[in-house]
């Protein structure tokens, strides 16, 4: 590979995994069953998927890491051991964890370990402590760039090695959701809805608007921005050259609950940006282009996180995403003609016209944008297709009945 920095993308489903592969990720991370921080997510893998995940990653030359990063209880130990045996069997490249039960089991089974950001490693001594068990440390998200850089330098100076005997690696977050809790250790969902974020059941209480009421008088306090607990999303593409120089060697994109369109768009931008930094062609013009592309997919607005020593204050001003584009569901794949590379879709709802930008998502496709200039509806050229119509167009990927067709439109909020 020879790349200085490894780009690590999230994969919450086979669609997202394929999207990460297509977009040029060097590695992916994913969770199975309930012992991961996205246990509540609608997208999830099961234990039996490990073989296919490993196969796909090996075929495409990607590393794959499994998250076992929840708090563990006694009743989880058997499942944990079952998962770790499968991890060993299917040669998953590493486990991401912070619970000492997982750390210990990985050591016993000789499985490479990455220390999760949940462990809140914020200094060189903590990193050195975990070097006896792990090959990589995901640093706390709250560190500044100079703190990251100092830790990396000190690892070099002390020649700290991980358990494998290779130099200890450092991973940092470069893009995606941030939360108000230190290293994700949040109890807000537990208090509000008995759903522990630390068991992968975060209910996003911090993303709601709140008001402050005096219970004695009923008077309400004026709060500047009622989204007082919901920070904007991390985006570092405009400071990526500085991040590369920090010495961190793995750059992580957050978002195992996000869709394949998000994974593709974000991974692609950071792939291009990292390649540009390495080639010496990273420029302000390119950053502007990437920012436009990143703004089109799910986001709560962007800031550079804590890396530049910014004070908290970059709070969201709206509920949910401020993405400039949104997907509108149209229908499903019905047929593929491989000799002429033509795909057929049934429109189940809504309508589309020639020159609409479409998006097709699927487990073998990932997420692919397609501008359809000429529209063939039920076998004849037409300007518009509506519910019940079958449309066909040239498409280089094989389409199956599970693949979904969307129209991309401007998100007016």
């Amino acid at each position: 590979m020879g790349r200085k920095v490894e780009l690590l993308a999230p994969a919450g489903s086979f669609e997202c995994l394929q999207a990460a592969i297509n977009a040029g990720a060097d590695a992916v991370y994913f969770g199975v069953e309930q012992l991961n921080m996205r246990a509540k997510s609608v997208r999830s893998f099961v234990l039996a998927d490990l073989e296919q995940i490993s196969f796909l990653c090996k075929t495409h030359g990607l590393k794959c890491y499994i998250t076992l990063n929840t708090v563990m209880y006694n009743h989880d130990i058997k499942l944990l051991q079952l998962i770790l045996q499968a991890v060993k069997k299917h040669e998953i490249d590493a486990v991401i964890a912070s619970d000492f039960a997982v750390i210990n089991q990985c050591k016993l089974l000789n499985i490479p370990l990455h220390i999760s950001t949940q462990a809140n490693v914020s200094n060189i001594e903590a990193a050195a402590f975990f070097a006896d068990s792990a090959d990589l440390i995901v640093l706390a998200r709250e560190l500044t760039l100079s703190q990251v850089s100092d830790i990396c330098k000190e690892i070099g100076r002390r020649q700290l090695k991980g358990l494998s005997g290779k130099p200890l690696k450092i991973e940092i977050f470069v893009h995606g959701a941030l939360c108000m809790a230190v290293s994700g250790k949040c109890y807000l969902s537990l208090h509000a809805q008995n759903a522990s974020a630390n068991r992968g059941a975060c209910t996003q209480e911090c993303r709601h608007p709140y008001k402050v009421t005096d219970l004695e008088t009923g008077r309400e306090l004026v709060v500047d921005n009622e989204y007082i607990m919901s920070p904007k999303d991390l985006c570092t593409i405009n400071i990526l050259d500085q991040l590369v120089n920090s010495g961190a060697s793995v750059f992580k994109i957050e978002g195992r609950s996000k869709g394949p369109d998000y994974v593709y768009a974000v991974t692609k931008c950071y792939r291009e940006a990292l390649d540009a930094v390495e080639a010496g062609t990273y420029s302000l013009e390119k950053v502007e282009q990437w920012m436009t592309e990143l703004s089109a997919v799910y986001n709560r607005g962007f800031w550079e996180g804590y890396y530049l020593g910014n004070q908290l204050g970059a709070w969201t001003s709206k509920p949910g995403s401020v993405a400039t584009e949104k997907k509108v569901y149209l229908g499903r794949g019905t047929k593929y003609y491989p000799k002429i590379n033509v795909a057929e879709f049934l429109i189940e709802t809504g309508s589309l016209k020639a020159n609409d930008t479409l998006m097709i998502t699927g487990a073998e496709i990932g997420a692919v944008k397609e501008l359809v200039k000429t529209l063939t509806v039920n076998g004849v050229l037409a300007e518009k297709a509506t519910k019940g119509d079958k449309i066909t167009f040239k498409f280089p990927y094989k389409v199956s009945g599970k693949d979904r067709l969307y129209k991309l439109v401007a998100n007016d909020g």
Partner: protein
Amino acid sequence: MAKLIQYREKCIGCGICEELQPEYWRMSMKDGKATLLHAANKKNILIRPIHQSDFETSTNVANACPVKIIQVR
């Protein structure tokens, strides 16, 4: 008679059901999920009748489940 229903597949193993109603629930040491005791199992949906005196506690359990896979009907 009221029934307790557990959609077991989506259980995340938090253990609150066993904590609140230990006579009805047990955390499985095999897969870490909660199991509704003495229940009929239809495609991983567990169902058992409950006595009227257990109705309130069962409702509390259903409300406490973080992934809302427990119902009282």
